[in-house]
């Protein structure tokens, strides 16, 4: 089996990782994945959000699947992450490019090099404090990212895996970053250079073959930020007005340089929807999720879905919207034409089932756990969590602290998943037609079934039978055989996921699992 590595570079790489984590939570990801991030701006809000989400993913998966052999796809992907998760590039804070390359020392030791540096970099670039990243200047990043430390994590684990690999293409590495910003624009081409990863002495087998299959997604401009808050202190920054020029220069670079990518995906959107206020970096740089990040995550899963011995030779894959709107059918799921409809159906089923599951667990499943079990008269509860049986054998009780922790973790992750998936929606007139935000979150926050019984059956853009929450509960009550060896927390989750899956099929006409795989 291949070892899959996702390396997210910069804020966009972190945001694509967020989308990737959610698709994995929904059961659409690969079997296993190792993930790490590169960002000198450790305080970046996007990065913090992804780090927190990864921790939640791992702990939820461990609690849910650690001791249970589950039949449901939730949290199927085993995601490993080195410690530390982020290669922050600089060993100490307040680094500038000048201090990093010992620029002042060149003046006497190597005046020629000193002058060359002065030609290549402005004074501002040399003196810029890099705590908050490269502030839209990839030339700075290209210099400082050219020598990743092989003996320090996260690279140490990576190279250990490469060393352990025996066959061609056994390690699959996927880089994700923006082409138009600072860190991503510097990191993707730098790490894509032949000697950096693909034909690094530890990875190369001969001049033509390597243990590494190298893929990547170049995220083209897809959002805008409100630039009214741009810094006025003279420091370097990049705003969405600079994106097209930066992109043009970067694309020319990619076309002219002989980079080592086996497959490269390009994703972008010309609408440039706003994702929040301007921030050059730091904790304020936390933007609303965008569907292009989901598209980029789908490029990642497509890359990892290919079999080890079947590396495609076509190198560039491009995704963008044809029309004004983006619906489920427009999401690019694979470059393999024969598999498009099956994968598209699977993706939609997984995400819609996860959305339904998350809604039902938050709104109904978890509150039931808080009730006195004797007061819960629902058939599903009586069948599987009979209080008399739980009294005799506490290991069958989902209210035991250890089991409740499973469901608490699932509920907390579910809320993050819901917020993520609805955040891509921009309202009734918006171009993204995936999940309707206004059906699940309103003025007063989360819209539970007590507030709107039909919310669960009307959250999807597209045809719906508009079934209500009672239909979900009826599906939950339907008899189902579950192994007695399943821990009660996992059993609880399985019941809810199974009902959510059938609800999604009934209500939204999703292709049933068996039909899709046939």
């Amino acid at each position, binding site marked *: 089996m291949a070892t899959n590595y996702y390396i997210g570079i910069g804020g966009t790489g972190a945001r694509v990782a967020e989308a990737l984590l959610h698709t994995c939570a929904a059961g659409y990801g690969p079997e296993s994945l190792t993930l790490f991030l590169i960002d000198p701006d450790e305080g970046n809000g996007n990065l913090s959000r992804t780090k927190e989400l990864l921790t939640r993913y791992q702990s939820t998966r461990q609690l849910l699947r650690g001791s249970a052999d589950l039949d449901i796809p939730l949290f199927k992907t085993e995601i490993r992450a080195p410690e530390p998760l982020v290669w922050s590039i600089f060993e100490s804070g307040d680094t500038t490019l000048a201090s990093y390359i010992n620029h002042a020392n060149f003046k006497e030791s190597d005046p020629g090099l000193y002058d060359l540096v002065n030609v290549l970099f402005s004074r501002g670039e040399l003196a810029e404090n890099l705590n908050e990243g490269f502030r839209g200047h990839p030339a700075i990043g290209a210099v400082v990212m050219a020598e990743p430390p092989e003996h320090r994590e996260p690279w140490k684990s990576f190279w250990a895996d490469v060393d352990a690999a025996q066959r061609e293409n056994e390690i699959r590495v996927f880089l994700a970053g923006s082409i138009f910003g600072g860190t991503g624009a510097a990191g993707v081409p730098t790490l894509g250079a032949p000697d950096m990863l693909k034909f690094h002495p530890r990875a190369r087998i001969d001049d033509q073959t390597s243990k590494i299959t190298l893929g990547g997604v170049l995220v083209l401009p897809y959002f805008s930020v409100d630039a009214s808050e741009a810094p006025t202190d003279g420091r370097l920054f990049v705003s969405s007005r600079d994106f097209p020029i930066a992109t043009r220069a970067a694309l020319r670079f990619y076309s002219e340089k002989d980079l080592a990518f086996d497959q490269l995906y390009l994703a972008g959107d010309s609408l440039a929807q706003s994702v929040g206020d301007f921030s050059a970096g730091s904790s304020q740089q936390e933007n609303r999720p965008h569907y292009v990040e989901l598209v980029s995550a789908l490029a990642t899963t497509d890359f990892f879905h290919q079999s080890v011995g079947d590396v495609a030779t076509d190198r560039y894959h491009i995704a963008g919207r044809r029309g004004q709107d983006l619906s489920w059918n427009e999401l690019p799921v694979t470059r393999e034409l024969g598999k498009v409809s099956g994968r598209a159906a699977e993706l939609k089923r997984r995400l819609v089932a996860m959305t339904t599951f998350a809604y039902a667990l938050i709104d109904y499943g978890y509150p039931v756990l808080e009730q006195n079990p004797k007061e819960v*008269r629902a058939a599903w509860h009586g069948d599987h969590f009979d209080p008399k049986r739980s009294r005799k054998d506490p290991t069958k009780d989902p209210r035991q602290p250890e089991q409740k922790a499973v469901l608490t973790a699932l509920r907390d992750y579910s809320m993050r998943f819901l917020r993520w998936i609805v955040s891509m929606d921009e309202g009734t007139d918006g171009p993204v037609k995936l999940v309707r935000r206004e059906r699940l979150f309103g003025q007063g926050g989360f819209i539970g079934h007590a507030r709107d019984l039909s919310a669960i059956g009307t959250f999807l853009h597209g045809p719906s039978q508009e079934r209500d929450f009672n239909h979900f*509960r*009826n599906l939950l009550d339907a008899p189902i055989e579950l192994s007695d060896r399943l821990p009660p927390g996992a059993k609880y989750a399985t019941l809810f996921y199974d009902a959510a899956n059938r609800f999604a099929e009934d209500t939204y006409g999703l292709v049933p699992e068996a039909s899709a795989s046939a």
Partner: protein
Amino acid sequence: MRSAPLNYLVTFVIAGLLWALLALVLGNSLSTSVALTVATVEDFVRLYRIVLSVAAIGGFALTAYWYFVGSRPNTVGNLQSVKRLWRVLLLTALALSVALLVVLLVLFSDETFTGLQYATFYGALSALTWLLFWGSTFFLSPRTVQYLPIGK
């Protein structure tokens, strides 16, 4: 067994068998043991069977109504109020059994029965009303409401 029409049919058959046992077999047995002063044995048996028929119809109707409510798609969202409904129906069946006993006693107010015979009348009426309702709903309630009957 819990889904329509099977639960209706099984309940109907049980009610019919109970009626046959209590109205026909027990009725014949009572006709030989009661000491009547005014009414004839034929009148007693006929009226006893009519009262038991009313009890059986009432018991079946209450149970059938419970099945109907229990299988409605929206019932699952109102389990608390449906649970209250079950109790109301049980009390109704209980009240029906008492009312029919009173009717029987009024119809035969000129007669004197033994304590065991009074108990037998009430036992038969109970079997066809609240016991039929409780037993049938205990075992044959639609899935959504199967845990609502008392004792589950």
